């Protein structure tokens, strides 16, 4: 898709490759358009909580909703990242308890979603994370300490989004979905085959920007994957208060796009569905919505008391569906993972944990003049004045403490 300066050029956006893929699916599978767009009757689940590969007929797949099993190499890489991700989550939470960080919104229990979100993307693709997606950003390749800068407190962002093609973790819910749409739109206008993964949670689907982002992506037929981690709670408010739709994936058809539900603790199914979604989007299917069924195992953050709004029994139920354990069992049973492999992976995870402890324990020097440097690309006389005022204040403080020290 190129931008043409020639006003006589046909407008290709309305040629509807959507209809081509759609009518293709309709013809091939003998289903209706809505059947293609509505999620399959059951969520896609390939490896069960006990680590057993489910028979093909029981994976939730149906005509129009078929997903090839990911390759072994990808699954091993995913497992490694699951172990690292779990260790990262727990190390960061420990650093909060030790007072080295003010807050860390952990994705403990959601690591399969985090890892799959990163691994399904190619180098030129973009990811737009929320505040809970630190592990996804790290899995994408951003330095762990840089990812945590926003929680270490010395700046609001720690890495260059353009270099990594990852947005800074977004605090106001859902607003980043529109940025994802814009990035995809720009790429499409330039004829690039970029795919953009826009991440959000179940609570975020209630925000207006969710609606606007999906609608814009669909109307402009953009390669955006909306990846909703349904972890069942928005702080204390359960899913039932956010939506009474049959599922969040069902919202897709309202925009004219396809939606699918996946077991969010099964990295095999997640990769199967996400890999296929990314491929379809890259080939011009338009946007897609994937709802990952998972659970926020810990409280919203360390500042939250989840005993006030949910039962331990519910949490225990989900502990049995842990994404890391089931993958370990599956790969071990398949002979792809042995004790040596496990040890090597644990070592790697410990190395990352050490990196985090070191990086987040050091007292990072802050330069107060940075406050003024990046407000604008081209600064203003007023900011120069204020910068000078602060510099003067600090110089006088330094001088008087020198005096006091004498």
């Amino acid at each position, binding site marked *: 898709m190129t931008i043409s*300066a020639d006003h006589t050029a046909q407008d290709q956006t309305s040629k509807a490759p959507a209809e081509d893929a759609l009518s293709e699916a309709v013809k091939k599978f003998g289903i209706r358009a809505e059947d293609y767009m509505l999620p399959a009757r059951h969520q896609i689940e390939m490896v069960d909580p006990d680590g057993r590969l489910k028979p093909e007929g029981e994976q939730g797949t149906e005509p129009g909703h078929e997903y090839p099993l990911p390759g072994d190499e990808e699954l091993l890489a995913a497992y490694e990242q699951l172990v690292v991700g779990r260790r990262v989550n727990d190390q960061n939470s420990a650093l909060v308890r030790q007072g080295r960080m003010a807050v860390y919104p952990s994705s403990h229990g959601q690591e399969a979603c985090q890892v799959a979100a990163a691994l399904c993307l190619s180098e030129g693709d973009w990811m737009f994370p929320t505040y809970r997606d630190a592990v996804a950003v790290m899995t994408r390749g951003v330095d762990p300490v840089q990812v945590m800068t926003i929680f270490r407190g010395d700046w609001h962002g720690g890495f260059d*989004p353009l270099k990594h093609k990852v947005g800074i973790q977004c605090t106001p819910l859902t607003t980043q979905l*529109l940025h994802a749409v814009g990035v995809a739109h*720009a790429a499409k206008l330039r004829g690039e085959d970029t795919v953009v993964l826009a991440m959000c949670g179940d609570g975020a689907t209630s925000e207006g920007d969710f609606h606007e*982002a999906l609608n814009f992506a669909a109307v402009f037929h953009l390669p955006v994957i909306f990846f909703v981690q349904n972890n069942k709670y928005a702080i204390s408010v359960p899913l039932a208060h956010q939506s009474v739709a049959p599922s969040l994936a069902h919202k897709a058809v309202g925009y004219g796009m396809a939606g699918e539900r996946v077991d969010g603790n099964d990295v095999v199914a997640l990769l199967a569905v996400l890999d296929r979604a990314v491929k379809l989007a890259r080939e011009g299917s338009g946007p897609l919505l994937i709802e990952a069924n998972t659970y926020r195992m810990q409280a919203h953050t360390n500042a939250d008391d989840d005993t006030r709004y949910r039962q331990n029994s519910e949490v225990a139920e989900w502990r049995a569906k842990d994404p890391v354990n089931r993958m370990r069992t599956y790969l071990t049973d398949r002979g792809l993972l042995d004790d040596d492999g496990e040890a090597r992976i644990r070592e790697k995870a410990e190395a990352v944990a050490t990196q985090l402890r070191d990086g987040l324990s050091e007292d990072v020097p802050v330069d107060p003049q940075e406050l003024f440097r990046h407000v604008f*690309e081209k600064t203003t006389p*007023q900011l120069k004045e204020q910068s000078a005022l602060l510099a003067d204040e600090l110089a006088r403080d330094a001088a008087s403490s020198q005096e006091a020290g004498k």
Partner: protein
Amino acid sequence: MSPTITTSSEANGNVSAATARAAASAAASAEASGPQPVTMAKALNTALADAMHADSSVLVFGEDVGMLGGVFRITDGLTATFGEQRCFDTPLAESGIVGMAVGMAINGMRPVIEMQFDAFAYPAFEQIISHVAKMHNRTKGAVKLPMVIRVPYGGGIGGVEHHCDSSESYYAHTAGLKVFTPATVADGYRMLREAIDSDDPVVFMEPKKLYWSKDLVDLAALRSAHSAAAKAGESSEGRAAVARPGTDATLIAYGPSVPTALAAAEAAALEGRSLEVIDVRTIVPFDDATVCESVRKTGRAVVIAEAHGFASVSSEIVARVQERCFHFLAAPIRRVTGFDIPYPAPKLEKYYLPGVDRILDAVDDLQWEN
């Protein structure tokens, strides 16, 4: 230099590009030479077209800006000239428009988006305040958002509710946004080109009651002047203009209030009082130097704006001018602004808007007996 948009013409031997260039130069030479009566709407429209010719990463979008050419026709003809991929309509969703523009700017484009009326920009407020204004700072300078948000503002057109607001104070108060507001036809051209060229996000407040105001302007000359200035890295950003020189008191105004201030100065001249009128032009960055130079010279000042006075841009101007010029003042600085009431219905608007009489009353109050 932003990544270029590949044109289909590159595939078929530049035939299409040549056609477009021919069309553009035909349009340019169809402009008569020398100053002609030109409306601000036409100046803005020409600025958009020229910017889009100069840089293929400049995109225009919003509601009704495509085929219709915008409800005020400011984007008239752009889709016909540049195609639907460069000037297009979006679904009816302001937050979506601004949010998508943020993403496009992150990924190498220069979006120039239109909010249909200033009060209809409010759904986009979170995107503007939390992201447009903060992105460059949040990323420690790594990401720039070279985008322009065009906002028709101000009253005096007999519009129904929500069509006549002045919202510039909200944007001026938001660190990270630049706020430009032209009051003349020539500035309409020049400042919109500069806003588009800026690598900072600019909220471009267009005084809608001045869209059809005409002035003798040479668009071709403005085009060349802008080219030359841009090459030299010069911009009029942060420079107020002395719209009318005077000696007795300074009227400080912007946007739709500038012609009103000029009319007040005309009337005052007939009564033997010489009023200097300053056109602020860029609210952010504000030109303290020019404004203060004037007030130090005259010793008296009145600030004029349509927006409600409380906690407004006018308040800011008074604060900073008295901070800097206190010992030169013969009287307190006065403000003539809209009352602190929701903008009235059309039949009552004349009681609300700062008019010549109210301005002259304020000037009379500047303690001349001292």
